[in-house]
């Protein structure tokens, strides 16, 4: 029957399209996976053009920003970082549209969901507390400055006046007091700066709304400058108290030449905290209905 043939044809065409798309996706994924490694090979154009320090390491000194890979004005780079349903958010993880969700244990997942239902009213940053590691690194809207020396990499963040000191080839002190930014030590693996971070308190969120963790948080970050404008970023987050296993994400950090870090004195006029306290008198006003 003609309609049957047509239907079969459509099914076959659809299947062929699907397989072709699958092949394309697999090829693209493989290209992404090997891209960083390829960029590091000697003789690679992009890798050869990046600035290097006297000891031959990629030089990340400069002003950067996470949360966007869109080169343009500050507005253009940061306009759609906020999530709008129906649109794909401008993720900080520019090389992948979708990241795996954090592998929370059931009890912790319930806490995350509850925070989401309350629209993040318990957001630590509302109280002007620092977002910590790894959240700050990929935060959009605000720049960060990297100052790289052979023995120390310093990261300065405009937002909340955060800073990170990353001594190279050092060990964590054995008397760490829990902190928002944790304690970082780094070492070089080829062209990649690997940073091990521990010694955290449990007062920050890992990424978005409600992403809690414990003081057992352990973060391993990899920074690889692959071209003039881009640092590939990977973090692996472990926390045996809240997770069922490690959580690895990939992202990019974008160079912002000419940008100057400025002051961000959060407590100066923090009206939101007062208003949040007011809103909390009746949660039904803002609580998600579903």
């Amino acid at each position, binding site marked *: 029957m003609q309609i049957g043939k047509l239907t079969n044809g459509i099914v076959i065409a659809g299947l062929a399209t699907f397989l072709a798309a699958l092949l394309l996706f697999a090829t693209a994924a493989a290209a992404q996976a090997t891209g960083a490694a390829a960029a590091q090979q000697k003789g690679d154009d992009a890798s050869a053009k990046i600035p290097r320090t006297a000891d031959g390491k990629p030089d990340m000194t400069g002003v950067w920003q996470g949360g966007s890979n869109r080169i343009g004005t500050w507005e253009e780079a940061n306009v759609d970082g906020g*999530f709008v349903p129906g649109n794909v958010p401008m993720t900080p993880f520019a090389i992948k549209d979708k990241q795996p969700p954090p592998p929370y244990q059931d009890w912790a997942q319930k806490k995350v969901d509850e925070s989401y239902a309350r629209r993040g009213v318990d957001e630590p940053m509302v109280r002007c507390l620092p977002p910590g590691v790894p959240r700050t690194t990929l935060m959009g*809207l605000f720049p960060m400055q990297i100052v790289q020396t052979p023995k120390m990499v310093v990261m300065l963040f405009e937002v909340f006046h955060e800073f990170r000191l990353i001594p190279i080839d050092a060990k964590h002190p054995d008397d760490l007091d829990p902190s928002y930014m944790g304690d970082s030590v780094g070492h070089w693996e080829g062209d990649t700066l690997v940073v091990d971070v521990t010694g955290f308190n449990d007062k920050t969120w890992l990424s978005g709304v409600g992403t809690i963790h414990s003081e057992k948080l352990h973060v391993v970050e990899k920074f690889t400058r692959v071209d003039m404008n881009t640092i590939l970023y990977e973090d692996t987050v472990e926390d045996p108290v809240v997770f069922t296993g490690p959580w690895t994400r990939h992202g990019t950090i974008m160079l912002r030449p000419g940008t100057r870090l400025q002051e961000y*004195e959060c407590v100066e006029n923090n009206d939101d905290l007062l208003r949040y306290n007011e*809103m909390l008198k009746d949660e039904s006003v803002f609580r998600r209905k579903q």
Partner: protein
Amino acid sequence: MKFRPLAICLAGIVLALGASAPARAHHSFGVEYDANKPISLTGTITSIEWTNPHCFIYIDVKDKDGKVTNWKMEGFPPSVLYRSGWRRDVTVKVGDEITMTGWQSRVGGPWGHSREVTLKDGRKFYFGPPPGTGDGGNAPGANPTPSGQTPPDAPPAPPAPRN
């Protein structure tokens, strides 16, 4: 452990939405502001707070009966405004007449979150971010405002790059 595909799927969606959205400034839009309440206000600036973590512009808005209400509108912190082309005491001043679009607070009242400011000479500046944290709703200008006016649909071009 019981296999709950729907629950897992829903949790995954929630996380994909909630956890991957980058942080915007220092708080959730959705606790205080309602993305389904777009507003457009034209009035005279009575005060400007060029402060962290947010700048505020206060404007007197006159309704059709002549009653004046002072609105408080929240925006970006100074560093972000500066990079978007704003200059303190230059771009806008007390006494200037401006139009602000944005979203009203969830509890009503004369305060809101502003997205864009239009000066009397027609120049437009972004004053705050779009709604974040998965709140949904309409962009300012997509729906008639409470006053019955419909602001322009097309978003303005971004200000000139200035770092």
